[in-house]
């Protein structure tokens, strides 16, 4: 380099520097082009194996729809989005391993997913230590609390506090007697806590609480005691197969004749597993039901897009989480102009989105997505217009921070 400026008087230093710069830029060009074209990779752990395989597959379909919609519009800043689906086997240890692989080997830019609470907390532990954005779509109160929170953690799904508040508001009348059948694990206790809080505010009373072992198959031994309490409302706080079994057996014992059965979340697939007869009249909450399309335009466009991509099938409640979780993240990435973590976090915190069920946004202190809660009632067989017409929308609790626990209650500085 020094030879140029010494022995060649017609080549000024400025010209030499300009030449070097041009040469350097030419060499770097492929690198810049590569960066421009580099796909955006989103990790998606989901329980493809195990009892929630159907929900998991719905989630994958919906998540892929979100990615497709974005890619069809040209991607984000010209970059295509790729969804990397992994089977977490509904196992926290497995989920942690898959998350490590996604971050270390596949170099994902963000992760969305998880169905069970234990899995989401495991994924979160891995992502927050490594500064990777994680949007959880598992229903749990725990991830909002300060102990598990990090600025990389976002929670797009509902939590038990929200669903119980909404359901109680529309079912617990003043002076109603409520009996609780609760699964003895964290999620069950969260549901009970939410209901009891709402119950106190609404002036209803609890006539008894029975905890059952998580995963119990037989509920016959609880029925005599529940019946003796003579409740107006039988509130069953459990999930998945437990919900299916306990509702079926409660109906077998004729509990639905003396009490109204109420659950925090009315599960689409469990209703399919048991059938319309046992579920008839059961009221519960949900994040999404395709029937919203009559009143919410974004629901209609989501349903139409999903039906077009999946041969006429309607999206389910859990499926919708796959869509809203991924799509809200991609919208934020669009606003941030790329995958820079700090910019995407800022974008997510300010994002206001309406993609499937009305307006939603993330609350700043705990990154919880503030959204509406549906209150559904399971239809009796005679009222079903077609096979997909499972539920009636009784009410939609509007999106508001009032149904969330306050920031200070969760442990965040006021």
């Amino acid at each position, binding site marked *: 380099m020094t030879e140029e400026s010494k022995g060649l008087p017609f080549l000024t230093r400025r010209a030499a520097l300009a030449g070097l710069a041009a040469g350097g830029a030419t060499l770097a060009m492929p690198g810049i082009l590569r960066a421009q074209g580099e796909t955006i990779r989103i990790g998606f752990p989901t329980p493809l*194996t195990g009892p929630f395989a159907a929900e998991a597959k719905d989630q994958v379909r919906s998540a892929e729809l979100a990615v497709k919609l974005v890619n069809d519009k040209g991607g984000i800043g010209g970059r295509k989005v790729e969804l990397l689906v992994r089977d977490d086997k509904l*196992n926290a240890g497995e989920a942690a391993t898959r998350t*490590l*692989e996604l971050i*270390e080997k596949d170099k994902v830019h963000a992760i969305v997913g998880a169905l069970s*609470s234990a899995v989401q*907390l*495991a994924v979160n*532990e*891995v992502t927050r230590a490594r500064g990777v954005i994680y949007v959880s779509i598992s229903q749990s109160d725990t991830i909002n609390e300060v102990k598990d929170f990090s600025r990389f953690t976002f929670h797009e799904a509902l939590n038990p506090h929200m669903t119980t508040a909404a359901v109680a508001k529309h079912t617990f009348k003043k002076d109603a007697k409520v009996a609780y059948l609760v699964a003895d694990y964290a999620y069950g206790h969260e549901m009970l806590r939410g209901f009891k809080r709402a119950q106190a505010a609404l002036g209803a009373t609890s006539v008894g609480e029975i905890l059952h072992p998580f995963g119990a198959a037989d509920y016959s031994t609880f029925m005599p005691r529940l019946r003796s309490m003579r409740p107006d409302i039988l509130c069953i706080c459990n999930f998945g197969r437990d919900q299916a079994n306990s509702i079926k057996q409660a109906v077998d014992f004729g509990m639905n004749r003396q009490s109204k059965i109420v659950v925090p979340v009315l599960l689409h697939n469990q209703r399919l597993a048991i059938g319309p007869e046992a579920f008839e009249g059961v009221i519960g909450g949900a994040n999404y039901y395709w029937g919203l399309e009559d009143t919410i335009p974004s629901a209609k466009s989501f349903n139409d897009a999903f039906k077009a991509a999946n041969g006429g099938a309607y999206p389910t409640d859990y499926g919708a989480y796959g869509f809203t979780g991924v799509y809200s993240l991609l919208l934020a990435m669009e606003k941030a102009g790329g995958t820079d973590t700090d910019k995407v976090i800022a974008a997510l915190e300010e994002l206001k989105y309406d993609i499937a069920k009305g307006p939603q946004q993330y609350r700043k202190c705990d990154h919880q997505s503030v959204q509406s809660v549906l209150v559904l009632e399971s239809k009796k067989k005679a009222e079903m217009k077609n096979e997909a017409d499972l539920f009636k929308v009784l009410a939609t609790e509007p999106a508001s921070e009032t149904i969330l626990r306050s920031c200070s209650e969760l442990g965040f500085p006021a």
Partner: protein
Amino acid sequence: MTASTSSVAGVMTGPAGHRGWRARLAAWRVPLSILALCLLPWVLPSQALAVNVLIYGLVAVGYNLLFGYTGLLSFGHAAFFGTGAYVTGIAIGAFGLPWYAAVALGIAGGGLLALVIGLLSIRTRGIYFSMVTLALSQLVYYTALQASSWTGGENGLRGFTVARINLFGWTIDFLDPLKKYYVLMVFAAVALWLVSRILNSPFGAVIEAVRENETRARACGYDVERTKLVSFTLSGLICALAGTLSALHLAIVPLDILHYHTSGMIVMMTLLGGAGSFFGPFVGALAFLLMEDVVSLWTSHWQIVVGTVFILFVLFLPKGIWGTALAWRAGR
């Protein structure tokens, strides 16, 4: 017995004076194993998988001491694996102890539990031994589930991520997968060396004698009950060490780690690799985890493949991959 009846130690002196390749292999088994472990992260598709092979291989080595070499089929070893993990996690998360103290406590905790469960279960024989280890370890599982303020219940234990390790003045970035692997490998290597020493010692001969014929061993004057108890406790200590490594690696302790499904998986890995052989358990862990990983990519029904492979091994290849390979080479 599914254990290799031609254990490596036994074939060391083959036909008169012929020490041959098997003896040399046995003498070098620890360095060779460590060499294989060093190469693992470069050979496998991901480092997270490599660490899992390390951890589960170590559990299987611990389990093999009891199952392959002493001949006792325990169905509850997840209890020691899990207890090691939980104690480590709680020590770091709730008490703020440095990682090496937590590891030591984890090993001690798991070992103590093994001593207690061992004392209770050694009194039973045969099938009843398997059932009682299953029942006692399920009790540990349900206790951990109930003690959720300590263990996190079914949400698992979190909040004890170790991001940096200070080792003799060096600071190692523990989040770097490769560095993490080699730090954990040091522990595994030490454990392997200890196991080799145990197997080469007179004690090692006694436990194999107990496996072959308990009555005869007793007739020879050995205290069979004490031998079994010592073997059980040592086995528990090694599994607990693997548990502490798992806690450091994943930065969480899932509740499932204590469930009998995990115990069953440990049994399957040991059998698949070769019960009663030194390196077999690592081969078994590698085969099992690799199979799971690869088959999961094609189909979500990987369990049927793994289950079928396991059944085929029980029927046709009871010595496992490594055991059969050793026997085949010896037979040639």
